[in-house]
């Protein structure tokens, strides 16, 4: 099965072949013999050319994988070739823009922006209090605030859009 990894604007081909109870994985011109066992869902034990790797993999949304090796987490964007074509035709990601949603139930403590305001990546938009800590939700890219749905003092559910933003300069 052929895949493509999208990284830094480049396409890296990956191929997974089943072979003799394991896999051959072709990546970057190298073929790796891999024995893979899923110990518990999301936890893989990989033997790659004899080296032992414990990896947890989580897919928060299609084509995105959060891969934890012992030294940290890496985000891998991996698609099948058909998905790549569809994306290039503007099919898949229906622009959510840069909307900021509350990650969990909490209370809005402070609203830092107003509609029409221009913000940059990293700017604070809303402060939400949850689990006894105050968390500042930040813009994930440059944009303009379209609508502010958070109200100071209000309790919010998890997964609710708090600030709607539109990207500028084709970003997002």
């Amino acid at each position, binding site marked *: 099965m052929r895949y493509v990894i999208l990284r830094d604007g480049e396409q890296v081909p990956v191929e997974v072949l089943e072979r003799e109870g394991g896999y051959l*994985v072709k990546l970057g011109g190298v073929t790796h013999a891999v024995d*893979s066992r899923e110990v518990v869902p999301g936890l893989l034990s990989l033997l790659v050319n004899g080296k032992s790797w414990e990896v947890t993999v989580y897919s928060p949304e299609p084509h995105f994988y959060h891969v934890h090796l012992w*030294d*940290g987490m890496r985000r891998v964007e991996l698609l099948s070739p058909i998905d790549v074509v569809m994306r290039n035709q503007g099919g898949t990601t229906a622009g959510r823009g840069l909307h900021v949603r509350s990650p969990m139930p909490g209370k809005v403590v402070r609203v830092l922006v107003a509609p029409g305001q221009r913000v940059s990546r990293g700017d604070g938009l809303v402060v939400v209090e949850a*689990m006894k800590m105050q968390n500042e939700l930040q813009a994930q890219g440059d944009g303009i605030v379209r609508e502010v749905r958070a109200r100071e003092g209000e309790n919010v559910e998890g997964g609710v859009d708090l600030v709607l933003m539109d990207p500028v300069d084709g970003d997002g």
Partner: protein
Amino acid sequence: MKKVLIANRGEIAVRIIRALRDMEMSAVAVYSEADRTARHVRLADEAYCIGPPPSSQSYLNMDAILDVAKRSGAEAIHPGYGFLSENAEFASRCAEAGLVFIGPPPAAIRAMGEKTQARRIMAKAGVPVVPGTLEPLRDAEEAAAEAEKVGYPVMLKAAAGGGGKGMRLVHEAKELRAAFRDASSEAVQSFGDGSVYLEKAILKPRHIEMQILADAHGNVIYMGERECSIQRRHQKIVEEAPSPMVGPQMRAAMGEIAVKAARAVGYVNAGTIEFLVDERSQFYFMEMNTRLQVEHAVTEMVTGIDLARAQIRIAAGEKLRLRQEELSIRGSAIECRIYAEDPENHFLPCPGKIEAVRLPEGPGVRVDSSVFTQGEVSLYYDPMVAKVVTWGRDRVMAARSMIRALQEFQIVGIRTNRNFLLQIVSHPEFLEGHLDTGFIPRILGEREFRSPGPHPVADIAAAIFAYESARRQQPCAGAAATGPSAWRRAVGRG
């Protein structure tokens, strides 16, 4: 004393139950509706529900807790840390109900609870305090005047509480007014009291605290210090004992001051005096914590004394068994606090279900935790997952074991700060013992804390995960004759 109620939850409730078990005493647990299957409930001898999930309706619900004590016939209450542990009113109500509160007298809690009063008492007792005000500030004008007196930079702090809330570091006069306003409003939000006081800000301070034990017969001893300078936003995340910068003489000097401080408020039971130490090794009283602390385990590892058991014995009226001259500090212990939070996303808490967890074990490793497979890290309480503590013959050995233990730690289903902790304890500055409270901001700044670069194994893992996920979703096409069969899907404890 035969039966003790633990007015707490999570890892500290488990810790106290273990101490009670060691002493062949009976443990009564209380739980909120969110904690019905929690480990402390299952390990206790008796367990009673005290209310819905929110703390204010359960673990802070004094009426409910005292009622359970009565119904169960508990003779004493151990408050743990947080929740009601430093609530003088609760300590009083226990006494009124004929229950032993395993902690200090209400008067001592009250005396140390208001920070400016604590400073006044200490100054009067001859304990060195950080230069600054001994009363809350009336307003920003007074703050400005006092700041001129002690000299910038200054630290504005909430009088009614700690933990970094209501604190502002002010470098120049022109920042003071806004900082005063912010500190005060944050203090109101966190403690219901906007009073703020002022201290001279010590640059590159170390945060070193001294453990003390006091019995009800007038004996007070110090148990050695803990180094707690590794903090993020004033929350401790890595602690150790002994402190790499404290030698026997400084320990004795700080210890004697700590004992003096405890006597000044008629302290009984376990307590901790927090000091700020400047670059010249001058130490100043910062505050006193009138409870058992999260990081007590490192002191236990280097002294061989079980502090939770000592607390229970003291509360039962026993005299301290250890004499000061018998105290010996052996080896080095380090603690890392694993929290369910995402350092890659501004340390946002990550509550959720733990699909699988592997806690480290082996020589020199101790883990205090209450998590379990299929358990929840609740959004109602603090996101502590586990305290991993290692002991070594010296600090280097303790650090190596900590690196090994953190690498062994494995969790599926929630994010934790494990990798961040690994970066801390592997950092050359940490290994050399160059610690001060600026450590975390420095390494976060210098290393551009981000995901590491690409790794072929990460790509391989993603590809295989995608491949196997897709195959699982195709009921017929997936069972290819040449492919791995379902037999190979080994599910184990990991």
